[in-house]
């Protein structure tokens, strides 16, 4: 390639194309770098979660943490240790009662003064999107009044858990399992 040939002439034109392009905004560069950092952090968290899920015996049954919006995010990986989950939720300032029951069983309704279904604040709980692999829900504590208890009851059937979230006015007695639906009158 001694004198100017096709490649040199093409380079001249391409240099003009590059020169005429708008310079990248510095803010955009900073943002994309930040995104990479965040993505790397998320990847690390995902890797950690996967290894936790794989280790059967040592894996935690649940995870509870406070979201930036103030809600409490509760992930249940394995339906065991309801007492541990109850304590953990209470550590976030929410009086709670957590019970896991076999299929077809429920706690005796007289254990508490439940808020009627029609009066439950719908915005109290956000459920995970169906596509999410993690079965979590978020509880917004501002909907739980003074003296009220958060009651989380799960009926366990292989591959098909049914959960009920209710509010009770005042304290909640220990669960006395009896046959029946989780919430009276609702299947």
């Amino acid at each position, binding site marked *: 390639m001694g004198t100017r*040939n*096709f*490649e040199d002439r*093409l*380079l001249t034109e*391409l*240099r003009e*194309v*590059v*020169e005429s392009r708008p310079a990248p905004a510095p803010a955009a560069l900073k943002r994309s770098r930040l995104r990479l950092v965040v993505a790397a952090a998320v990847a690390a968290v995902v890797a950690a979660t996967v290894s936790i899920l794989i280790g059967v015996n040592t894996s935690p049954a649940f995870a509870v943490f406070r979201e930036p919006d103030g809600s409490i995010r509760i992930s249940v990986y394995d339906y065991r240790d309801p007492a541990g989950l109850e304590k953990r939720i209470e550590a976030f300032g929410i009086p709670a009662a957590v019970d896991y029951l076999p299929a077809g069983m429920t706690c005796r309704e007289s254990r508490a003064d439940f808020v009627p279904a029609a009066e439950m604040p719908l915005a109290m709980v956000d459920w995970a999107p169906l596509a999410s692999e993690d079965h979590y829900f978020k509880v917004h504590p501002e909907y739980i009044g003074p003296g009220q208890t958060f009651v989380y009851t799960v009926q366990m059937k292989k591959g098909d858990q049914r959960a009920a979230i209710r509010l009770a006015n005042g304290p909640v007695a220990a669960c006395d399992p009896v046959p029946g639906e989780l919430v009276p009158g609702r299947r």
Partner: protein
Amino acid sequence: MAEPARTEHQLADIAHDPDAFELFYRSNVELVGRFIARRVDDPYLAADLTADVFLLVIDSAHTYRPERGSVVGWMFGVAYNVLAAERRRARRETAATRRIAGRRLLEPADIARIEERIDAENAAREIYRALADVPDPTRRLLELVAVDGLAVTEAAAALGMSPIAARVRLHRVRKHLRDQVALPTSTGEAHGYA
């Protein structure tokens, strides 16, 4: 032909810095020319496509991610897209609609040189034509490996495929093509793309 380390990590520069672009262009224009000569036997069209490839390189430099593979693999991925678009275009449009009509920059000496290169890549073009009936994305992978001589891992990275998925695809198609195409052995070693 090794890229300077700077462009490995900062390829985005070439879209905005003419000097960075020139460095990239000079170390890759021969590779791109051969890539095209393995697929196209018309020097005028080859000149147009060379311009198209570098224009697309400029437009998509920001998409390059070093952790996903080498610059050369990425660039071949870009070149592949240009060639695929050309096949779709199927000469519906004229060269006048191109941003830079490469053929306008050709002189007789260039045409002779590009024709020589096209002749030199005769065997590769035979393979390229033999792959016409293989369905995508296996054909894309086969092209980069059998026509362009990329290592399987590098070809896989260029196509955003895992190396294992790439090997499985190659293994499946190998028996159908055994008589027509000489594929590299299962180690996936490149036989060089220069």
